[in-house]
């Protein structure tokens, strides 16, 4: 009986299919990815069974965090640049080209107009650290209303979405909705998490 030969297999394997697969995935993720914008605050939105998706573009996001601070954000760099011009004219503050550029890259912010200049002058790291006071919403100094109004004048197609934390007190949300209604915005979206729709 001949000796059983142990077959020596080559330890290197063909990686071509693996590479094919990997590049397919890379391409897929590159094409579907929209980079996650860095938000000024983290909010924990309540959940609902609603199945409407928010549109990708032309959205004003009014974020309300659990300390009742209000943040404003809009997409579109041109919109933001034009918006800052208008707000600067209205509040008598002037911004340099560089500040406009920084502003057009911000995803959202929560500082009053008079502090906006120093906020924009910060380094982007420092900007994350700083404690933003929120946009004033009281009736004597209603800056949120102006931001919304001017954005709607700049880009009439915008949809308004309110992204509130679960623990925001109702009067704050009510005030935000009242501001929108004062500006003749009667239709807006509340951003919520997904929840299974009950079957019964």
């Amino acid at each position, binding site marked *: 009986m001949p000796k059983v030969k142990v077959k020596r297999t080559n330890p290197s394997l063909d990686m071509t299919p693996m590479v094919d697969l990997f590049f397919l995935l890379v391409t897929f993720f590159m094409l579907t990815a929209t980079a996650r914008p860095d938000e000024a605050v983290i909010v924990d939105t309540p959940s609902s069974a609603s199945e409407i998706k928010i549109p990708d573009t032309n959205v004003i996001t009014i974020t309300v965090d659990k300390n009742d601070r209000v943040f404003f954000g809009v997409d579109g760099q041109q919109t933001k640049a034009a918006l800052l011009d208008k707000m600067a004219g209205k509040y008598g503050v002037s911004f340099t080209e560089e500040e406009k550029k920084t502003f057009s890259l911000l995803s959202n912010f929560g500082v009053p107009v008079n502090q906006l200049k120093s906020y924009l002058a910060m380094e982007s790291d420092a900007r994350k650290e700083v404690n933003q006071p929120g946009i004033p919403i009281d009736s004597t100094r209603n800056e949120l209303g102006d931001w919304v109004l001017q954005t709607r004048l700049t880009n009439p197609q915008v949809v308004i979405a309110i992204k509130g934390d679960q623990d925001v007190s109702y009067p704050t949300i009510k005030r935000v909705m009242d501001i929108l209604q004062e500006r003749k915005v009667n239709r*807006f*979206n509340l951003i919520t998490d997904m929840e299974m729709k009950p079957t019964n």
Partner: protein
Amino acid sequence: MAEMQQKADSGGKGGKKRAKRQSTKIDMTPLVDLAALLITFFMLTTTFNKPQTMEINMPVKEDTPDERIELKASNAMTIILGENDKLYYYFGLAEDNPELVESNYSADGIRKVLVSPQVKSNDKMTVMVKPMEGARYKNMVDILDELKITDTKKFAMVDISDADKQLVQQKMGN
């Protein structure tokens, strides 16, 4: 990597000069490494699911309050959102001293009331949602969600009145 060593061995011997047979295989390990790195990067930076939204249309604020229609007591239901995630409801109008019932946000709570015949069989039934000062935003979203789930078409967000507050106080006192 194994191929590289083989190549080095074959080149070492002298003798007859032969056309070197280069292996067509390339080592793909670095390529795979790079591809895997890119996949990881894109997977982590992607926001996959877009957030859900709930669309609400608020009624246009009338400049002339006279055009409003008086709501009949038999067609009115009020849900009061209280502090600490409490929920109360009553049928009829606050002036008639209705019976305030405590309920909750679960499937057995307010949803049962909203699908009950008293609400469902009456086409004119209008649900008024009155959040109190201490209510949370989550409560408001939850109740709007319940109204949507139960397919209640006629509802309104109304400011809380003093009569409603008194009813809740009485209830809490008991």
